[in-house]
């Protein structure tokens, strides 16, 4: 694990108000270099708004966010060059080859790259000359991730990256996200899947009604709950249905 104590993203008292209703109500947290940081919470808790403010897509109404010491609100274009963003539903223009899209994304950052190298990284080398519309859901997610990393960002944001993927593609994506983290890139993701958060995230912030109500490692969060005397109905099975599914269909990624 590359995780260090160097803080890369610092969020202090961040606020967003729609009308008179606070969507994000003064939240603070930090993310360290090479860490996978999860933001969990029910729909409408303010997860996406939080991400969008840090991504410079939405105006910050109060508080500050800094990435590597640079203020997000004051230097949006510098920040955009330092972050990679994987949207919830990655859309790409059609009738464009994967290599061309990689070139375009790199060009958006003013860089020239070898697209083949990036596509090989995510097992899409064979699809280099294919149009993006011929990709499967999982391939599209992998492509979207590599497209967001062409400029070697410091922080990588993913909004519900595995929604709608089959178990094989999900596992493959987890592996990929861990590889990104191992390159020293900080990953911030939102998810509704608790198993995903437990497997993937080094630390988790749980949000509700615009506030962070708990922030810790998954292990500590569980330990904390158990210490308060929580007991779950005991289950004797040592496997669940997903284990059965993976056992039957294998871990191999489908295209």
């Amino acid at each position: 694990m590359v995780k260090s104590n160097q803080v890369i993203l610092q969020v202090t008292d961040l606020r967003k108000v729609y009308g008179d209703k606070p969507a994000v109500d003064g939240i603070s947290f930090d993310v360290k270099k090479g860490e996978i940081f999860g933001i969990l919470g029910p729909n409408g808790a303010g997860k996406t708004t939080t991400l969008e403010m840090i991504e410079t897509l939405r105006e910050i109404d109060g508080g500050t966010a800094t990435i590597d010491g640079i203020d997000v609100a004051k230097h949006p274009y510098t920040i955009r060059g330092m972050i990679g963003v994987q949207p919830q539903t990655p859309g790409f223009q059609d009738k464009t080859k994967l290599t061309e899209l990689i070139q375009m994304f790199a060009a958006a950052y003013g860089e020239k790259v070898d697209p083949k190298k990036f596509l090989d990284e995510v097992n899409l080398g064979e699809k280099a000359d294919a149009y993006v519309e011929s990709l499967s859901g999982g391939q599209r997610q992998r492509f979207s991730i590599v497209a967001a990393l062409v400029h070697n960002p410091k922080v990588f944001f993913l909004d519900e990256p595995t929604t709608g993927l089959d178990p094989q593609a999900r596992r493959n994506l987890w592996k990929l996200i861990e590889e990104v983290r191992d390159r020293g890139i900080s990953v911030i993701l939102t998810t509704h899947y608790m198993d995903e958060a437990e497997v993937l995230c080094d630390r988790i912030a749980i949000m509700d009604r615009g506030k962070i109500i708990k922030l810790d490692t998954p292990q500590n969060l569980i330990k904390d709950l158990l210490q308060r005397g929580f007991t779950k109905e005991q289950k004797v099975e040592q496997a669940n249905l997903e284990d059965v599914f993976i056992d039957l269909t294998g871990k191999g990624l489908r295209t």
Partner: protein
Amino acid sequence: MTLRQKLYTVWAFFTVNIKRLFRDRLALFFTFLFPLIFLFVFGGLNSGNNDVSFNVAIINESKAPFAQQFADQLGKQKTFKVDKEIKTFSAANQKMSRGELDATIELPANFGAIKPDVTYPSGQAVVHYTQNNQSAAQTLTTVLQAELQAINTKLTHSQTPLTVTQKQNNQRSLSSFDYTFTGLLGFAILGAGIFGPINVFPELKKMGILRRLHTTPLRVWQYFLSVMLGNAVSGLLSIGVMFVVAMSVFHLKVVGNFVELALFLAFSVIMILGIGLAIGGWAKNERQAAPLANIVVFPMMFLSGTFFPRFLMPHWLQNITGYMPLSPVIDGARMIATEGKHLVDIGPQLGIMAIWLVLVYAIAFRVFRWE
């Protein structure tokens, strides 16, 4: 980022989008074929408009060789379009009643017969016509009269002291096709500059493509510039095809300088594109874009001279419509292409276009939304 890098961004977006255009059959159709269809329809309606000609049937009931010769001679003349299918009066009357024939020329049984006491043939042709075709029949009769008079002179060897002849001066006047063609150019520029962006941008927004670009350091001006270059290139190609067809099929004579013409048209495409960028860039979806585009496009379509030349309008209306964005485009293109004017001669047109250019791009930059 250095300026060089920023321009590389523009170039990369431009090249990929041009490649994409040539892979998209629908886009190719609307870029290249669609304007050509209009060109063929309107060009076809206008072709031959300059020659006066009559659709006639010749019914020759005479057996005399002279009558046959005379009928053949009429068939060769530009003034007459002889319908060779028609042999009987009933067929001719039917066609005349439908307005497909202007008149029927009858050469009666005794036409061209040589009377016993003379050496030359004689007779009287009859022009039959319907109530609505009086003027055509009158002109036709006069023409026939002249034809016969010429023959008479030869046959009787009489003197004709007073005659008239015609002489064309070498000055070219604008044909109605010149107006039609430059109007269609304007229509093609409208299509490329406005209908393109208002369809493409809401689609890009719906798919989240612009939103994603928004997370990169890409600036609006870089994005606009790449779209401008792409439209200028595809627009000029499309217009180039129109010129080739107009010159080879419809005998359009371009007397102006092609380089000046291309520069002027590229400027026109970019100026009109600003309107499309403003509408498409502002609209969140197709439902916002379409009505606004119609409000902007329809007045230009009918008042700027795309389908009807502006000189047909009353004077006050010509003065007002001259200030619409597309009017100087159409006027300027016609002045360069068919009147041989130079860019320096069309200052007023360029001036109006420049004002619109600044205005529409100022609006486009202001109202652009990435999502």
